């Protein structure tokens, strides 16, 4: 085929290493198949700012849209517009409806595929890693960005559910919201620790929550005593793991998500059928394996 397909990728927000890495994977795939990638998003993880971007993308009638919907309910109608215009939609990282597509039932099953590492599962994996690191007992809490962000909300959910179900020795304290401010996240860790001297671990549900919580542990002089599990793995995480600030990082595979996203879209456009869900999995990074090139390749943005 000699037509160059244009594939749009709309991230949850543009100012996040996770999505920037996803873009790199997508670009690699686009290059491989000779498609053109358009990357456009909003600065906030919020439907109110994401939908206009989506509209502008639809206006240009790309051949396919990959999108990380900022809400599972609120993006249904806006995405339907794309679907109605005949543009295939694939959701990446997050989903609409219940994430089960092409069933012919309900009004949110029209996307072709959901390609992601499930955030709920990610939270559960983080819970397991933290439980193991702290020896299955003690107090932990979730350091989270702000309420209303579906990805981080799901990670928190997965974390709490897993702890409740399978780790009876662990008490999960109230979550704390830091407004994506590492400084506030650090202070919150210190406050939680000042109140609970038996705090043994914290799960940072996104980059700055983890970065801040890790610094809070350091400021509190508890490095090694309070375990830090971080979600996402930007380059700075390597140093943090090496220096012992962060004990475990749960790396999603954004580059893979982007890569598979474009590949799936291309496959669909060229008349092939694609699976309705592709899980990309996680990599658990800690001091023991951080130097391993097989692991290091999942560190974002290289």
């Amino acid at each position, binding site marked *: 085929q000699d037509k160059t397909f244009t594939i749009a990728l709309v991230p949850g927000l543009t100012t996040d290493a996770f999505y920037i890495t996803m873009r790199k994977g997508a670009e690699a795939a686009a290059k491989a198949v000779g498609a053109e990638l358009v990357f*456009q998003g909003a600065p906030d993880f919020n*439907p109110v700012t994401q*939908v206009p971007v989506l509209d*502008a*993308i639809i206006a240009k009638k790309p051949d396919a849209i990959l999108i990380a919907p900022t809400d599972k*309910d*609120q993006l249904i109608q806006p995405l339907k517009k794309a679907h109605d215009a005949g543009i295939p939609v694939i959701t990446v990282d997050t989903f609409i409806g219940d994430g089960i597509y092409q069933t012919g039932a309900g009004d949110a099953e029209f996307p072709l595929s959901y390609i992601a590492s499930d955030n709920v599962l990610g939270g559960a994996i983080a819970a397991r890693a933290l439980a193991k690191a702290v020896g299955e007992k003690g107090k932990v809490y979730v350091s989270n960005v702000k309420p209303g962000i579906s990805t981080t909300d799901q990670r928190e959910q997965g974390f709490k559910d897993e702890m409740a179900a399978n780790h009876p020795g662990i008490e999960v304290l109230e979550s704390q919201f830091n407004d994506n401010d590492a400084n506030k996240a650090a202070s919150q860790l210190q406050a939680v620790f000042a109140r609970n001297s038996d705090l043994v671990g914290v799960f940072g549900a996104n980059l700055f929550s983890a970065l801040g919580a890790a610094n809070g542990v350091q400021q509190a002089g508890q490095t090694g005593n309070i375990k830090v599990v971080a979600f996402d793995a930007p380059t700075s995480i390597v140093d943090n793991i090496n220096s012992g600030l962060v004990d475990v990082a749960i790396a999603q595979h954004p580059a893979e998500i982007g890569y598979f996203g474009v590949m799936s879209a291309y496959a669909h456009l060229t008349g092939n059928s694609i699976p309705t869900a592709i899980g990309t999995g996680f990599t658990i990074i800690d001091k023991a394996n951080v130097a391993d090139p097989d692991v290091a390749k999942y560190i974002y943005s290289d």
Partner: protein
Amino acid sequence: MTSTVDEPPKVDPHIAPQADHADQTQTLIGHIAQLRAWLFLGALIIIFEIWSRLSFGGTFVLSPFNWQSIAIFAVAPLLLAIGQTFVIISGGIDLSMGFIMGLAAVVAAHMTNLAGLYMPLPFAMLFGILVAVLVATIPGMINGLLISRLKVPPFIGTLGMFGVARGTAFLLAGGTTVPVKNEYFAMLGNGRILGIPYLVLVTAVFVLVMHYILSQTRFGQHNYAIGANAQAARRAGIDIKGHILKLYVLSSVCAGLGGALYAARFTAGAAQAGEPLLLDCVAAVVIGGASLFGGSGSILGTVAGALVIAVIQYGLVFLDVEPFWQFIAVGVVIIISVLIDQAQRRFSGAKQDE
């Protein structure tokens, strides 16, 4: 930034004198100043059109889809900006509008669902919207009382309410989004008539009413007077306390309507619905010709200001500018929008030196 009653005289730099012996010229220049934001909007559209044709050979301005999208996009920030226009003209500011909008969105969603159990869906929808707007007036009333009676500066009073409304909205929403199950509500949010989305129609009517209130009623006239010189207004016998109370209720009604329409459009209420709109809505008012010192501004200017912001943000995506460069471009365009004002002022011979 306060409209407490002991505000002393001040003259706004934006109503720089443009005197004239001939009434005609005076009026003309006055109108051009009002039109400035619209002129800028026109220039912006022309530039985008040229850019669009050069860069990918398509049209920007002639696509009805683009205009529908931009109009829908502008609805929420515009509704907030309308309320903010009144507040800013009075010399105040309302930082809490974004979360009052979120609160209203959550309430609208809950109430529509709840009412749907007891009455026909169209009525349930109306009931939900009504209750949402009514609930929104509560924080507005508290803002107004704090500012008028207890003389809390508007920035602080509404910043406090920012937190209170935020917390309340998230508590009501249980920290998540509240989906609405009401097909009429969804239709209101996404349907259109003759190609014009209902949302845009509702907003247009609302804007007209607000324009009437600001430009043709005593309430509006007093709002300008209070913003220019609260002391003079008080001495003239205007009930400033009552006015300010109404003012913040009015702005929360705008936010409440914004929240209800948000819930209709996204068929879900979310506490964070209005969070990203705060700076944009104030910027729309200022680009529309108001001064944060109070005393000047207009609804029509604000409409242009809101459209300027919507057109830039939509247009830059449409023109496929890199996201980080978009930040820069939006910033530059905002500055230029006001520079034009300055140039025009100089040209029209307004006093420059002092």
